[in-house]
């Protein structure tokens, strides 16, 4: 009985633990998303800070340095799912062409970008 329970628990533990850690692993980068992108894109808010979907990663700033999450947190993945509907309601926003084809899904789900009148 004991061995059979362990046989279930140990693989389950190994399967779940890395998932939790992965969401916390970040990659610090020497370059930020372009200034014009930050200025015209709505952030999401996660872990008490603004985060920006850019180049298929979630970028955030920590003590002046930009980083991104190596694995996409579930909350942010779910937020991306709402963009298409939300963007329809904003006449001054335009879909970012650079994100028309998400590499993971092959569909429109990039953030809308604000267009200023010329």
């Amino acid at each position: 009985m004991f061995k059979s329970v362990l046989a279930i628990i140990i693989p389950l533990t190994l399967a779940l633990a890395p998932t939790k850690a992965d969401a916390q692993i970040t990659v610090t980068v020497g370059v930020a998303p372009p200034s014009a992108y930050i200025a015209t894109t709505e952030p999401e808010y996660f872990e008490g800070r603004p985060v920006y979907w850019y180049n298929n990663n979630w970028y955030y700033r920590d003590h002046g340095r930009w980083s991104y999450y190596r694995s996409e947190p579930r909350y942010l993945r779910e937020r991306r799912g709402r963009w298409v509907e939300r963007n329809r309601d904003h006449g001054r926003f335009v879909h970012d062409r650079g994100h028309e084809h998400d590499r993971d899904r092959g569909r429109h789900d990039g953030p809308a970008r604000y267009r200023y009148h010329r």
Partner: protein
Amino acid sequence: MKLSSLACVWFLAANGCGSSPPPPPPAPEVAPATDPPDQIGSDDEADSDLAEHHRHHHHGGIAMFVAMSLDTLGVDDNQLAQIQKIQADIHAQLKPAHDAEKVVLLALADGVAAGMIDQDRTDAAIAELAKTSAAAQDAVADSLDALHQTLTAPQREALVDKLEAHIAVWDETNAGDDKRGGHLEKLATDLALTPDQVEKIRGNFTTSIGKAGKYDRAEVDAQFKQFAEAFGADRFDAHEMKMGGMVSSHMAVWGLTRMSRVYAAAAPVLTPEQRTKAADMLRHHANYKRTDAE
């Protein structure tokens, strides 16, 4: 071993001991600061619209950038009405500076159409703008205080990021060396200038801009840093921000002076058709509408 103990072992392995603080997040991996990631969107319409705005509108300085940042801050529904009111108030407080800028742009349009900029008329209009722009920064202090009270700490952080981004775009568009996206390059595209015309205009511009005042990016950065630190804190009083008016006036004067020098350099070189088109473009910007409803 009981099942409950096994469950505890599993829980601890997956989540850490409940009585201990959670383990620190793994150290960040550091990527080399070499090439930027694919510059997605760097040349798309939203980018060029923003650059075009910052190329022609300088009147509001940092307060205008704050108001623009509210367009994309991502506020909750229960904040929306208040944020819209604050944004409308800031734009209203900047209206005198906006109107002063309009006078400058129309003076430039008239000069370009005639083939010769009246520099005295233009400089006088810019001097008037300097006064109104400085005064506007004091007028927006209450709005900035209200904004600070309305936003959450993460939203204030986002606003500071956006403010810095607007300053960077404005700086690249107006204070750069015309390598990319500068006035002359844009004018060459819009008016289909010949290489010979570009060189003549560049020569004229280099001579005239040398006599104009210098743009002090360090002064702007110092003001931004002061604002960013103050606005990010829990307590904020915009009335204590002493440099705002001076810096915004500096940006407005520099931006319009540089623009006026570009058009002054170009006016005698352009063909009649190009002058007409350039004048129309300036009048369009002079009559700028922020929203469709205006």
